[in-house]
């Protein structure tokens, strides 16, 4: 935490972000502050607020002040403004986040069950996913991706911060079944070799 008094630009950025009712990108801020180069000020402020009760965080390229996570128990009390998601919606959201962009059919393929129309609507309405165009395959299905509001809500700076995403990717768990199957079986059409352990597994 910096003890130096803030310079004029730092003060302006601090005031603007405090007053803003939405997270702001550096470009938004710069435009609002007459074209100033705000990134150094953002960095200085983030450092200044680190460890305080309020922190300056970046979420999907947008900056906001929010209370420190370790104080959640003090602030949570009567607040219940967080939407409770059904299991279907929770899983669909995770699938969109980890696989984006995905079509509804791809979500259903992973979950092994049809996705009710309302499930994706809930996520769209919450502003956590958005329609990201269509896949250029027969039927041109709509595809979905997450939004900056998703990152903000779940406290992610970028999608790379999704819990465990690197491990999942490394383990091939974000690949479709067929790709994983091909990888496991050497990519050939031959049946998987009848190794003893494989037989054991299937015994």
């Amino acid at each position: 935490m910096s003890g130096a008094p803030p310079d004029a630009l730092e003060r302006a950025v601090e005031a603007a972000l405090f007053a803003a009712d939405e997270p702001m990108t550096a470009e938004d801020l710069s435009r609002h502050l007459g074209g100033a180069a705000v990134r150094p000020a953002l960095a200085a402020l983030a450092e200044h607020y680190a460890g305080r009760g309020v922190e300056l965080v970046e979420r999907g390229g947008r900056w906001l002040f929010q209370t420190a996570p370790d104080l959640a128990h003090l602030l949570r009390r009567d607040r219940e403004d967080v939407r409770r998601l059904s299991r279907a919606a929770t899983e669909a959201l995770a699938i969109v986040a980890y696989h984006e962009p995905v079509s509804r059919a791809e979500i259903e393929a992973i979950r092994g069950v049809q996705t009710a129309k309302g499930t994706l609507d809930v996520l769209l309405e919450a502003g956590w996913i958005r329609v990201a165009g269509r896949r250029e395959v027969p039927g041109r299905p709509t595809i979905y991706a997450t939004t900056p509001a998703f990152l903000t809500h779940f406290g992610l700076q970028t999608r790379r911060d999704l819990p465990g995403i690197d491990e999942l990717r490394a383990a091939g768990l974000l690949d479709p079944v067929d790709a994983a199957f091909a990888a496991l079986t050497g990519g050939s059409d031959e049946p998987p070799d009848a190794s003893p352990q494989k037989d054991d597994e299937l015994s």
Partner: protein
Amino acid sequence: MTETAATLPALDESWDGLATRPGGDEALYLELDGWEGPLDLLLDLARRQKVDLLQLSILDLVDQYLVYINRAEALRLELAADYLVMAAWLAYLKSLLLLPRDPEMQPSPEELALKLQLRLQRLAAMREAAGRLMARDRLGRDVFARGAPEGLRVDRKALWQCDLFALMQAYGQVRARTRPVVHMVRERPVVTLEAALARVAAMLGTAIEWTDLRAFLPRAAEGEVPVDPRLRRSALASGFVAALELAKQGRAELMQREVFGPLLLRAARG
């Protein structure tokens, strides 16, 4: 790699899952609605084997699934069709795995089983990811944005532009537009119908030869100065109407030998 040493829980054991009521009465409490489809149920069953999903005993899993479905049917629970489809497919898979291997079969039963495992693995991965996502410090639940932000407002102020010439022009046009307007219709030389009727009737007389209508019209040679082409057009029109009128009165006959040909006129024969 270890052997599949998973000790399978007995089916009537109360699980930490959706299958039985907590602390359950083992009396076959089934809540199939609690599963999001057959793959979900399979995953739930597979997890109880407490092994890596790729080392799972597919045969055990199939047996457990089929037992569940049989129980549900015994209880006459309404089962969604996809549970039954999955049950049939798993029974088929089981038989393939147990029967002597047919080397011709494509894909092999082991491949089918592996694909099922891969699907379960992917669903499990996403389910776990969803859990971790939901457990994050969420804005509005664990961390909070400013409670009463003043808000940033950008007031758009129009800077109106207009110059003196535009002002003059506008005023000029207002005055021009609202000035009283007088329409003047200039008098034109015309041959009235009455004049044409009198003329054609007089000239027709008792002519018995077919005569071109144009011969009845005023001509320069007669000193009536039909030089103005507009007057000639007027005379032709009036003369034509006069001819029609005379024919209607039975005083003249009209003939035209071809389309757009000259209109011929003669006195009606008694």
